[in-house]
């Protein structure tokens, strides 16, 4: 319950600082002027912003898959032998499905804390890569806000956000869009997780529920394939992930990301194309 209250607090207008795009303007004066001109406009509640609705709407398609995975994770946690209140606490505040699943058997088996934490750290390494992407959009926000947003930024939020804002520059729509997707994703994950925790093994595994989550990601993958370089990068990532599957701690995902980034850069640099001046932000 408390987590739900926290989320609703985040959505209150009080917490909405005007988004200040100071990209490129580093002087304190310029920053102040921008801040003033933005706050002169009537503050609009974050959740009333049209981009908030858009962020939530674009997440609805995958929400079913997320929900199926949340349910299965809840069931797995119920069966792990962890006390139910602790498992519920874990699901509500850790909010990282694959890290939870990796930590569960270790916790239940009484492994040392540092082993549990190191395992979760490795499973979560992909988020470190994603956080470099988030920085392009949110570096002008106060640190506390950045970290609050980061906590809720799950994989699919990243994927959908980057599809919506591919230009890698801060825009005012980014923050409401982010929160719209986050609220839907959080709910679509946590509610079924709790159901799974409390109904436990009454959900038969042969329903193929896990595959619903895979199909959601498959559809999302297709929506990102739009040219030769993305197709090739995807093929390389898939092959790398399968080839490196034997690695522990889901490190095959990192291998796949590294391989796809490498091949993507190679294609980008060997293919001659007219340089778009807007694209060169570096």
């Amino acid at each position: 319950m408390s987590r739900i209250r926290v989320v609703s607090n985040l959505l209150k207008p009080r917490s909405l600082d005007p988004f200040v795009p100071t990209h490129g303007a580093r002087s304190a004066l310029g920053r102040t002027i921008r801040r003033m001109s933005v706050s002169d406009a009537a503050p609009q509640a974050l959740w009333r912003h049209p981009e908030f609705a858009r962020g939530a709407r674009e997440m609805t398609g995958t929400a079913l898959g997320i929900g199926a995975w949340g349910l299965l994770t809840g069931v797995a946690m119920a069966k792990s032998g962890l006390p139910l209140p602790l498992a519920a606490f874990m699901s509500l505040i850790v909010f990282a499905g694959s890290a939870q699943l990796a930590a569960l058997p270790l916790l239940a088996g009484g492994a040392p804390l540092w082993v549990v934490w190191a395992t979760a750290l490795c499973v979560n390494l992909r988020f470190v890569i994603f956080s470099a992407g988030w920085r392009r959009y949110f570096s002008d926000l106060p640190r506390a806000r950045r970290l609050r947003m980061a906590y809720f930024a799950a994989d699919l939020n990243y994927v959908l956000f980057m599809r919506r804002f591919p230009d890698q520059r801060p825009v005012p729509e980014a923050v409401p869009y982010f929160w719209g997707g986050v609220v839907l994703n959080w709910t679509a994950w946590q509610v079924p997780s709790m159901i799974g925790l409390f109904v436990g093994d009454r959900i038969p595994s042969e329903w193929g529920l896990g595959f619903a989550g895979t199909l959601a990601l498959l559809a999302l993958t297709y929506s990102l394939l739009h040219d030769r370089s993305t197709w090739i990068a995807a093929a390389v990532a898939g092959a790398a992930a399968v080839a490196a599957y034997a690695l522990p701690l889901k490190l095959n995902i990192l291998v796949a990301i590294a391989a796809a980034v490498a091949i993507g850069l190679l294609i980008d640099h060997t293919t001659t194309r007219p340089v778009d001046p807007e694209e060169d932000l570096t």
Partner: protein
Amino acid sequence: MTALEGVIAVIGLALITILTRGFFLIPERELPLPAWLQQGLRYAPLAALVAVVAPEVVMTQGRLISTWMDARLPAVLAATAYFYWRRGILGTILVGTAALLALKLAFGW
């Protein structure tokens, strides 16, 4: 494991969630990330998705599947066909799951 240890472990895990998801958001100064890396990062979300999907489709218990009589392959084909026909994610999930269930129930694949 005492209750207190469990709570400490879970709080630590939550901090790890924040630390990893916010890693490059922690410093206040602009990070000197090389330009090529920034550019290459646009492939990261796609790669992460494929890295989760591909093994789920073509592997069973850590090995490549060796039979065509696996319900997942036709299910993925059906889901793919639906996606390129209608472009809806929800429909893709429903069509693929329906195909999977039908094959499992009809042939035991």
